[in-house]
């Protein structure tokens, strides 16, 4: 591999990692606090992409209005789901939540078919981000560069929110002991609702930002959910920077692995997870569960 190729692959790996991080960070937040294995997270991602298509392409609004619309719409959908349905399940057998999110996947996939039909769609690059930048020895696409910038920004924003605000302290406390938190007078149900809303909105943003570089088709939710879980797990559950690290590992392993060992590309993410879990059973930055 020449130095040029190496640089390019490293860059593309980063860009993939950042797009995946945005989606996975939402899943991590939800799992970390609510302990819900949300199968529907991939569906939220797909809805984010489709909503961006409707707003940016069908209605002709600027692309970033579409991204914002995806975030808001997914936040609203998630808030409604949490308040109307999911909250009734926290006190019940926690595996039933898994069944619940499976039902959500079925319902939302059909809803997407009713709203958008079964055609495949394409969203254009936002103006100014559809070309490539020449670095002299190599040209890289502007949009991927943009993704490399957005990922860390979202990571920092989430870190500030969770680690540096009072609300963030409440959220972290909720992961430890929600009874105690409730006894202290915190409105725990609203904390849960907010976490589910923010986490799902991030999936929507992830889908919206992925939209210009991929085809929008039914079924695009299917593999993304596994990949997000892999990132969250190898990073260490409930750990923001763990997810960031997990996404980086995922992006680089998938990019370089596909180039060097294309026969293995179907199982690369799973191999990565296998190796990480055998060496560090609680993920890269995770801690053993005390239970």
């Amino acid at each position: 591999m020449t130095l040029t190729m190496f640089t390019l692959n490293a860059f593309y790996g980063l860009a993939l990692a950042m797009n995946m991080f945005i989606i996975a960070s939402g899943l991590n937040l939800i799992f970390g606090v609510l302990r819900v294995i949300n199968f529907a997270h991939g569906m939220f991602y797909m809805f984010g992409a489709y909503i961006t298509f409707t707003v940016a392409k069908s209605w002709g609004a600027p692309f970033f209005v579409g991204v914002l619309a995806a975030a808001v719409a997914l936040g609203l959908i998630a808030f409604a789901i949490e308040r109307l349905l999911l909250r009734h399940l926290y006190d019940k057998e926690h595996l039933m939540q898994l069944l619940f999110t499976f039902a959500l996947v079925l319902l939302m996939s059909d809803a997407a078919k009713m709203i958008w039909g079964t055609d495949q769609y394409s969203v254009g690059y936002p103006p100014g981000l559809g070309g490539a930048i020449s670095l002299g020895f190599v040209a890289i696409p502007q949009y991927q560069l943009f993704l490399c910038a957005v990922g860390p920004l979202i990571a920092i924003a989430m870190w500030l929110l969770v680690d540096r605000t009072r609300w963030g302290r409440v959220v972290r406390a909720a992961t430890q002991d929600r009874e105690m938190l409730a006894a202290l007078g915190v409105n725990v149900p609203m904390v849960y609702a907010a976490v589910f809303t923010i986490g799902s909105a991030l999936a929507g943003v992830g889908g919206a930002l992925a939209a210009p570089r991929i085809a929008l088709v039914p079924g695009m939710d299917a593999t993304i959910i596994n990949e997000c879980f892999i990132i969250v797990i190898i990073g260490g559950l409930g750990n923001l920077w763990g997810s960031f690290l997990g996404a980086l590992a995922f992006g680089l392993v998938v990019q370089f692995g596909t180039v060097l060992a294309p026969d293995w590309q179907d199982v690369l993410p799973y191999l990565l997870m296998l190796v990480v879990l055998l060496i560090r059973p609680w993920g890269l930055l995770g801690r053993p569960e005390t239970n």
Partner: protein
Amino acid sequence: MKCTAMLAAVGVLAAGAAAAQQPPIKIGVLYPLTGGGAVYGVPALAGHQLAIEELNAKGGILGRKIESIERDDKLNPAAASSTMKELITKDKVDIVLGGLASSVGLAMSEVSKQEKVVYISTIPKSIQITTDKLHKYVFRTSANTDQEGDTMAMLAGKNKLSKICHLQLDYAYGNDLEVGILKALPKYAPDAKIVLTLKPKLGATDFNPFIPQVMAAGCDGVLSGLWGPHFVSWVKQAAPLGFFNKIKWISGGEVGSHEIAGELKGEYPDNVISNTYELWYHANDPSHKEFQAKLAKKLNTQETPQWAALGYIGVMYAAAAMEKAKSTEADKVAEALEGLSIGTPVGKLTIDAKTHQANIGQFWGPMVKKSDRAYRMMEPAEYIQPK
């Protein structure tokens, strides 16, 4: 004049009465209607329904009405196998049509063999269906990978490609198509050399591991089997780098269809030569106009999808075979299908008596910009039919 009209009316009434007395002919059909396959299954089913509506308006088959029993194959071979058995044992269908994925086509062929019910494969291209796994009751009205590969090799020769990058998806269709191309390439382009073969995975959305390799290989042309969303994702990720400026992209997988051109619009790249089963704006047979008009009305859009033609042709073949056999018995229908020629919206087709493969062709041509359209169109569109 009046007399003939009355006679005709009496005839219709009589036919109607006869149809009312006899039980309907049941046609079972499986297409993927949910998930990733729905992009193709839903329009194919629309064509299927159109054919049945047309036939019923003319009095059905053998004077009997047709009942269409439609199911989702869920793009899963085992589910398709169960559902097909259900159609045969519970609904007592006389014939089964459809399928999309190669594995689903092969699974349905297996049921057809066990249950001795005729199955017409309308979309799956797996060469095995009409070679190793061929049996008395299975027929195919779609193209196969050998035919598609042969045409792609021919186009490589015609466009004087010398250094070729070969791109196929790493699964049954891609691997079979690769075999088809490699078989035919020495015949059409003896001097061409394949300098790079890359195989992205089925369902890939990220082609960044491959695009730089192709750009660095210095080929003057790409032979590609990336279909549908794979092609779209490749275009979106490669176009910003000027990928399509110098490279000729010769592609199977029907990316010359209006479904892709109409969606990518201005983003559709230069230098693409591809194929499609049908084009709503182009006819090579007089009957196409009527077919397209009816389909446009049914789907409520002028720009109709190509997959509908495949669903439509499957039904037309089933009907013609039953009429010819004067029966719905599987053995007789299978015999009737062997060597059967019918007129279709894409011209006259014949099913080979030995291979059970219809000589369906595809339209091939460059995708060009049109001053009066937002999307590209295939022009000139050449209908290439296997010998």
